[in-house]
């Protein structure tokens, strides 16, 4: 059981935990967190396999691949989190409109939707964002 196999199997377990989290959780942000965990696990496996090189220095190509992978990973994560944030705002605005329709007499008393209801509700139809 050489050092690289230790890390490779550890990274594999880490990847498995991340994949489990992605499909087991129902909450969007937990799923995004789990995908990040899975990605890091996979990169550990890749770097561990690079350590099998008989030369003192490990194989540099997998290192470059891991660097590329981490940057690609955070780009996808950032976009996913932004979409989730926008979804939270749209849902909060929808909830506000619902409250407004239920008690038309009393305007929603300073219902500061915690998720920042500051965004002007998107204009109906068309789908052009504000």
């Amino acid at each position: 059981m050489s050092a690289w196999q230790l890390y490779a199997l550890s990274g594999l377990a880490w990847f498995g935990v991340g994949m489990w989290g992605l499909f087991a959780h129902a909450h969007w942000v937990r799923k995004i967190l789990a995908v990040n965990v899975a990605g890091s696990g996979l990169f550990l496996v890749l770097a561990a396999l690079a350590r099998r090189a008989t030369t003192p220095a490990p194989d540099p190509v997998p290192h470059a691949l891991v660097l590329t992978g981490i940057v690609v990973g955070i780009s996808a994560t950032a976009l996913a989190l932004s979409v989730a944030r926008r979804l939270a705002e749209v849902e909060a605005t929808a909830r506000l409109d619902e409250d407004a329709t239920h008690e038309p007499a009393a305007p929603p008393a300073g219902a500061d939707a915690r998720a920042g209801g500051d965004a002007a509700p998107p204009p109906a139809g068309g789908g052009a964002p504000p």
Partner: protein
Amino acid sequence: MSAGLAIDAALALVLPVLAWAVVATPDLRKAIVLFMALGLVAALAWARLAAPDIALVEAAIGTGVTGALLMSCVPWAESLTPASRRARADLALAGALAVVACLGWAIRALPEAGPGLTPAVLGALEVSGVEHPVTAVLLNYRSYDTLLEIVVLVAAAIGIDAVLPDDDARRRLAPPARSLVGVLSHLLVPGAVLVAGFLVWKGAHAPGGAFQAGAVLAAGGILLLFARRLRPVPFAARALRGALLAGPLLFLGVAVAPLVRGGRLLELPVAWAGVLILAIETVLVVTIAIVLLMFFPARVLASSRAPAATVEDPP
């Protein structure tokens, strides 16, 4: 050597357990803190695997920027309706175990010693214009991957701008207040800029490079953003977009130039390779820093209660 193996064994054991803790903790805030801890322990593992480049990027981007990004999501995360009504935890567990078993079987079946491409990389190192093999792979042998990866970063920036247009959120930011984060930024940001420059320069002959430097620069920027010293520049501002696209456009220019003379895409002339790589990396640092900063749009700062803001943010 057994002491080294003991450390490796300990790290190899801690990582999956910590990963399980991150994924299984019910409280989101605690999960994110554990995620950052996981990233830092992973940086240790990278160091043990003689991968200093990855340790730097993992700590800076994988833990720092991703952690800050996730933490900025906590205020609105609870209000999000879940994706599916019943989480299929048991089915997912069975699936994950099966996948891990198969992949583990394959990993065990891999030959013990695999030279990989080390001889080829080291063999062509003198012609690559840099001494550090990872930088040579990233910006000369496989520079086409890096070019596409920078385009992926720009795609993320566009996506975030499309999804979270920073229209009115910017005007309602609290005025910069004398705050502790302000003091922290005064002390750390000059250092961050210095380290970023140092990392870019060092990238040619030692672990370092555009990604690590971009992440450190972005960390300084994030600190300024949260200290209200830096007003988030809207994506609509042409200057920001110009600075953002300078890196990819220069990279593309260098890539296309040889095509005109009948050479091949991204074929760096040997004499100029070192200078070109340094020029590309320097401009890429700005691009990477801007994109990483754009992951924190104005509306994130407007609504998240920055702990140090003495005056309450207007709702």
